[in-house]
């Protein structure tokens, strides 16, 4: 199969807009979590979220108007705007703007979302009830459909290759990058714009995830402390919004045009828990088999892993189950493996999480540093793994593994390796 490398990155997330800003803040130990103030929360159990800092684009703020005119923004849910912004950054970073028909047809898009335009669905439901069906906008459907992130990006940039979307809850971003890599490896495309986007910060989503007892509620007055993977006081995840998009490229295609290469996608594994709609299987076997499949595809031994970007959502059950699965996978090598959860800083971006975290894994390889797990004051279990509490750690990283596990028992792992020309 053909080799696939990462040549472009783009992020909009609670730490800001733009890869370098976000990464610098992440490594500095900053948090993007805050009190929700854009809608009423006094009757909701969870009152904190990872919210994108909006502004005029200065100091890493996100300026939606620079991506889409205000009248066009009205027609799409925020997840599409986020995806378009991150895709624009990733394509510019890759220096890839196909002009010929052949190049356009060889470039595809595969962007997913866990839920899609929930906010717009909530608003339209109110219009339907209050004003009737004749007041539902013709842009209601195309503004909420999950695959319209891929559609809008392809229209904006004239990308005529495979146009696809993934919907696997919190594994979406990882599945999108993995599946897009396969499309390149198998020759369906030479370049893929891939990742995930999510805009879940609205009342109906907070209410829904609260009902699942999934969200943190104990730190409503101290939002920056609310996401605390592996810590004894963790009590649920914190929702975040944003998008992570990568440009993936066939190795020789990237080399031929002298593209900057961040790293190689060497492994991709998937599994199903076949256990429960929201809870991970207690024995962690799904996570274990998923990581094992990714390593097998990569031809990498567990002991060769240097850094793991954990799923680590800060839920009481999930964190320890993943830790157990990793321990089972790496055995005696645990003492030389570093694993952190960047959800401690940005929250859980659901369908965007796996893509943003894949980018963090690639940057960890580039800069030879492991981002920190914030708020890890007192681990709930003993482990030989270095969980990188509080402060980033300089680290020799050749191989990085990124895990994503979603509702429905859907698991995805990606393995990236440092590229040496």
């Amino acid at each position: 199969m053909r080799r696939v490398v990462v040549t472009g990155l783009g992020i909009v997330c609670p730490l800001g807009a733009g890869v370098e800003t976000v990464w610098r803040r992440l490594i500095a130990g900053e948090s993007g979590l805050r009190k929700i103030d854009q809608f009423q929360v006094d009757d909701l159990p969870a009152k904190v979220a990872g919210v994108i800092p909006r502004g005029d684009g200065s100091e890493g703020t996100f300026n939606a108007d620079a991506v889409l005119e205000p009248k066009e923004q009205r027609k799409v849910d925020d997840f599409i705007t986020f995806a378009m912004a991150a895709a624009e950054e990733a394509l510019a970073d890759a220096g890839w703007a196909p002009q010929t028909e052949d190049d356009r047809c060889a470039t595809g898009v595969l962007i997913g979302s866990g839920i899609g335009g929930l906010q717009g669905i909530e608003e339209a439901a109110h219009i339907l009830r209050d004003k009737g069906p004749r007041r539902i906008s013709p842009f209601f459907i195309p503004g909420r459909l999950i695959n319209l992130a891929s559609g809008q990006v392809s229209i904006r940039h004239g990308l005529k290759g495979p146009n696809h979307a993934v919907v696997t809850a919190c594994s979406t971003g990882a599945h999108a990058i993995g599946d897009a890599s396969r499309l390149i490896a198998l020759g369906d495309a030479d370049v893929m714009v891939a990742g995930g986007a999510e805009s879940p910060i609205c009342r109906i989503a907070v209410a829904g995830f609260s009902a699942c007892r999934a969200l943190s509620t104990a730190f409503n007055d101290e939002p920056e402390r609310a996401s605390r993977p592996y810590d004894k006081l963790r009590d649920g995840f914190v929702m975040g919004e944003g998008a992570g998009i990568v440009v993936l490229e066939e190795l020789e295609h990237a080399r031929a045009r002298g593209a900057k290469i961040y790293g190689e996608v060497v492994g991709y594994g998937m599994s199903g828990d076949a256990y429960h709609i929201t809870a991970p299987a207690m024995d962690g076997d799904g996570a274990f088999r998923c990581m094992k499949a990714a390593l097998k595809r990569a031809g990498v031994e567990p002991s060769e892993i240097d850094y793991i970007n954990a799923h680590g959502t800060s839920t009481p059950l999930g964190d320890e189950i993943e830790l157990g699965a990793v321990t089972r996978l790496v055995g005696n090598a645990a003492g030389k493996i570093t694993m952190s959860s960047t959800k401690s800083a940005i929250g859980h971006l659901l369908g965007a999480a796996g893509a943003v975290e894949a980018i963090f894994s690639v940057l960890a390889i580039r800069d030879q540093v492991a981002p920190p797990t914030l708020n890890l004051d007192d681990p709930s279990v003993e482990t030989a793994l270095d969980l990188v509490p509080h402060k980033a750690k300089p680290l020799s990283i050749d191989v990085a593994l990124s895990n994503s596990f979603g509702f429905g028992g859907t698991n995805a792992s990606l393995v990236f390796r440092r590229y040496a020309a």
Partner: protein
Amino acid sequence: MSDIAERVKKIVIEHLGVDAEKVTENASFIDDLGADSLDTVELVMAFEEEFGCEIPDDAAETILTVGDATRFLEKNAAQA
């Protein structure tokens, strides 16, 4: 310009994000003002909302220019 014509013009400017001077009586929503077919559906909905009337689909199909809209609404608007 009649009150209705003014209100029509305001809605068109707001929904299509175009400059006021382009919104002339003979301006076609699609050919001159950059609307696509979905934009025109939304525009008709905005007229219905503003003028408190119902514009049936067969009538909506004949509203192609700013002037078409004004003339239709001068005849049919409930809140003119």
